[in-house]
């Protein structure tokens, strides 16, 4: 049973790349108020999410065009809660093979690369062991063709053809390569842990 949070407001950045229905539903079930922000001016509260829709290039383009870069750099300096999901995690890094020539936020060292998997995209549930007690280990849902193979901020890995980084953490910055909003109750717990919703 997941403890409902004290009605925190969580803002999801609208990267105009797809469906955030599942993510909104997940947050609402956790008792949160949800805002969807096209621009930084629309952000409410101290908890922000870059959702897992679109490609590296399209997400960075939206973040740039709508004036998010300075805002996000400040947010990170202030060490406020920021969760990146799937491509939302990948943009924390420098670059991605998915979108050559496009620069990421560059907060974490490394380049996102194509996954050497038996099938592409990787689709399904896969075991993650977290190396920190901040998160419960379990089996979340992945759907990706690109991944971070190694990172100093890696706190969980999984394997499909090769081992890659399933999650990263740097203070209150958290990235999940998997989709916690599609990972049943376990995924909801991880969102609550990432955003400190208790």
């Amino acid at each position, binding site marked *: 049973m997941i403890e409902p949070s004290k009605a925190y407001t969580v803002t999801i950045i609208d990267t105009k790349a*797809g*469906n955030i*229905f*599942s993510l909104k*539903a*997940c947050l609402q*079930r956790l008792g949160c108020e949800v805002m969807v922000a096209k621009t930084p001016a629309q952000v409410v509260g101290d908890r922000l999410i870059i959702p897992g*829709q*679109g*490609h590296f290039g399209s997400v960075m383009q939206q973040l740039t065009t709508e004036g998010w870069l300075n805002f996000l750099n400040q947010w990170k300096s202030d060490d406020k809660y920021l969760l990146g999901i799937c491509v939302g995690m990948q943009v924390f890094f420098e670059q991605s093979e998915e979108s050559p020539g496009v620069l990421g936020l560059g907060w974490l060292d490394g380049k996102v690369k194509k996954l050497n998997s*038996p*099938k*592409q*995209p*990787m*689709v*399904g*549930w*896969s*075991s*993650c*062991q*977290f*190396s*920190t007690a901040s998160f419960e280990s379990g*089996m979340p*849902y*992945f*759907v*990706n*063709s690109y991944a971070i193979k190694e990172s*100093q*901020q*890696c*706190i*969980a*890995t*999984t*394997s*499909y*053809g*090769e*081992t890659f980084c399933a999650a990263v*953490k*740097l*203070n209150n910055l958290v990235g999940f390569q998997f989709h916690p*909003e*599609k*990972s*049943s*109750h376990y*995924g*909801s717990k991880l969102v609550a842990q990432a955003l400190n919703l208790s």
Partner: protein
Amino acid sequence: MIKNTRASKPQIGDDTNLLTARIIPCLDVDNGRVVKGTNFVNLRDMGDPVELAMQYECQGADEIVFLDISASSENRPTALANVTRIAQQLSIPFTVGGGLKSLADVQAFLDAGADKVALNTTAVTHPEIIEQVAKSYGSQCVVVAVDVNKPSQDSSPQLYIHGGRTLVNKDFNQWVNEIQQRGAGEILLTCMHRDGTGLGFDNELTGEIAKNAKIQVIASGGAKNEQHFLEAFRHGADACLAAGMFHSGEYRIDQVKQFLADNGVKVRI
């Protein structure tokens, strides 16, 4: 930058494949009710789609597939409303299909709450839609459903569209290759000659396709017991879809998964 010191490296072991086999219940929905038929005909009412979807998530389903088999334009608003009702209750992936004809239809179902769309007839008649959806929403959003029939074991596979009613003059194997080239994320392969018969999946055909494909292949058609799932996974299916055996209440998904785990198949429990 503060270095995040890790007390110990995550223990994964030598296994380079931790991806589990998926069990996917399918809701064929007609007029707001889940139905079941044999070989695509003679439909029986099996229950409310929202109730069944929630039940399956509780039982450990890895995904839910919802197919609007009425697939007519009058029924579209009802189908969309049901998709939303289900999506609001689910926290596992949700694929929706049934008569999607255009990018606008795909958008409508995704907006209604679907995570992925299944395309069948339209993919065959207008295959460029596969690329269009993959480009707009990502490959992972596109499942191409293929209805194949083999009247006898020796006959060559025949491709069908329009809910299994129209034979298509297109080579089945070439179509499977084309689907991958055009950027689909997964193939849902339904063997019509097994569908609703309870004789088990056609593992020879499905296994061959699954082992050669570069994308995941979901086996469908004929499952009636846990052993059928075991055989399908042993033959190479990445995921298995079933309907009647779960809708009837005869089998629970957690029960099937435990059986699979006991027999060495990696599943999410």
